[in-house]
């Protein structure tokens, strides 16, 4: 038996973990204290007495108020949410069917199709937005939410398809065969047996897709132009930096509010999400 010394646990586990947690959470902390910091404190010289960069002395909600009253932030929030939900829905639906087909059905070129779907995921959006912009213009969708709802699936569907395909492959195929013998059609077996078992995988694909579209920047920057049509990431950056003036308080308030929904979604589904990525049920 190995006798473990307590200091080893500290050196190899607790201390690195603590450093990691601090490193990860510090930006959020910074975001928070900046968002509630009055302008007087924000733009004070470093050499001023009472300067406390890591702490806010007189917290205030004025930046949040300004955000809601002087900008179209509520619109951005709604736009982001609307676009993220619909494009996630579309991508999940397609990803479910495509992932299932690639995992289970035998058809010519199945392998090649799977690979090419994956390859499309690897094409960087910075390249893809040029032809996409052309298409969006031809369909006259520019500056509408549909420009994003229809372009996000170009990277979300391959992503969902691959994640779900991997998950479906871990489900023993006998479950489905048994259901088909028991009286279900192939489609029935998929819906009644495979999908319920794949819930953790579906949820993690959904969470990921939602996060990716929530945070997406380039397409949103290119395809939307009127201020009230923008999404949170683009709106915050383009409307709160005017020329070379940064409205730090509002900027951080907007970023904070924008990251809360994603954080909520993750914390709510974290367990599903972990099993979704690490494997599934045994028959």
């Amino acid at each position: 038996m190995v006798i473990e010394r307590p200091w080893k646990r500290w050196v190899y586990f607790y201390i690195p973990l603590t450093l990691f947690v601090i490193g990860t959470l510090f930006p959020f902390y910074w975001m928070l204290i900046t968002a509630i910091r009055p302008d007087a404190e924000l733009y004070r010289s470093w050499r001023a007495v009472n300067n406390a960069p890591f702490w806010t002395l007189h917290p205030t909600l004025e930046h949040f108020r300004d955000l809601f009253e002087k900008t179209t932030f509520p619109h951005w929030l709604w736009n982001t949410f609307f676009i993220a939900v619909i494009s996630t829905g579309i991508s999940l639906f397609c990803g479910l069917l495509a992932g299932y087909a690639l995992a289970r059905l035998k058809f010519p070129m199945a392998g090649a199709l799977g690979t090419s779907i994956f390859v499309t995921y690897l094409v960087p959006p910075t390249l893809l937005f040029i032809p996409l912009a052309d298409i969006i213009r031809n369909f006259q969708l520019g500056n509408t939410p549909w420009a994003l709802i229809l372009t996000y699936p170009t990277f979300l569907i391959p992503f969902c398809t691959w994640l779900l395909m991997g998950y479906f492959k871990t489900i023993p195929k006998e479950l489905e065969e048994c259901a088909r013998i028991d009286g279900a059609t192939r489609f029935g077996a998929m819906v009644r047996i495979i999908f319920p078992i794949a819930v953790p995988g579906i949820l993690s694909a959904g969470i990921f897709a939602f996060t990716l579209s929530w945070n997406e920047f380039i397409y949103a920057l290119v395809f939307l132009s009127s201020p009230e049509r923008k999404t949170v990431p683009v709106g915050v950056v383009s409307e709160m930096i005017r020329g070379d003036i940064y409205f730090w308080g509002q900027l951080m308030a907007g970023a904070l509010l924008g990251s809360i929904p994603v954080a909520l979604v993750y914390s709510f589904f974290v367990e599903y999400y972990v099993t979704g990525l690490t494997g599934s049920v045994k028959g």
Partner: protein
Amino acid sequence: MAQVLLKDLNKKYDEVHAVKDVNLHIRDKEFIVLVGPSGCGKSTTLRMVAGLEEITAGEIAIGDRVVNDLPPKDRDIAMVFQNYALYPHMTVYDNMAFGLKMRKFPKAEIQKRVQDAAEILGIQDLLKRKPRQLSGGQRQRVAVGRAIVRHPQVFLFDEPLSNLDAKLRVQMRVELKRLHDRLETTAIYVTHDQVEAMTLGDRVVVMKDGWIQQVGEPLELYTKPSNRFVAGFIGSPAMNFVDVGIQGSDSSLTAQGTGIRLAIPPVNASQLGPYKGQRVTLGIRPEDLHIAAGGDQAGYVFDAVVDVVEPLGSEILLDVKAGPNSLVARVEPTVRLKVHDGVRLAVNPDRLHFFDMTSEKAI
């Protein structure tokens, strides 16, 4: 309840010809076992009957319906898988009721059938549990229960006992047999375990490399194997094989191997006549070898040296060497012999097997 007919059945995967010209008439109410080494095409055959694999060529009929183009759900069969394949998100009750619900049975009928099946299998107390809360043996019962509630025409089993430990396997084997006697439903059972095959099957089908080697009742396979493969596959410990040359005159043929010389008994003489001067394979089952005593005729004994002694309590397995040939003899537990002892063994002259060297067929 129905008979099942397999006619010139073939299955080809891209590179593998998994099932070759299988012809089989499974009678109504029969319990038939497909047995053979891993990869011989047993599961593929069963899955074609179930409708889970496409048929490359040939025909399958269940009852008097050709089912080649019917989807699994319309074939009126039930299948038990090696890994049980219980639906993990449903309770035991829902697992068993699933097939009936899919077929739109009335609720009361479903309840009654599930209760009946649960009673037969002794799983009434488990109905509200999820599969992950069950032991291996209990899951096995649920899987069987799910099959029997539907009262199908044919049961299909694909190595249903292979995931159980040895003791439970013997117990479930007996229960399956009892269940079949009670339900009298045609059953096709796949296993690689020849003991399971012999104990369960009304008839046993031995397969190898996609071909059927022999079909017969268990004892028939044991006493009259049609070729060397079946002879070696059925029976444990396996039959001993010795290469011998056939010599002598028609009236007194002998089998001459290195280190062994045996007279050919009159029952085999006529078939072996044409092989005079050629080599054949002699097969002797371990229990047809015993320590020579006064009553044994001179032509049927040979000398050997003990190599390994394996006492099993009820009997002793003697591994002996006669010249270069290794043989196993099953002898009385009272025999006292040590390694390297010389021993004179006698064969049972009525029970010798001879196989052609090239075709491996029984002579």
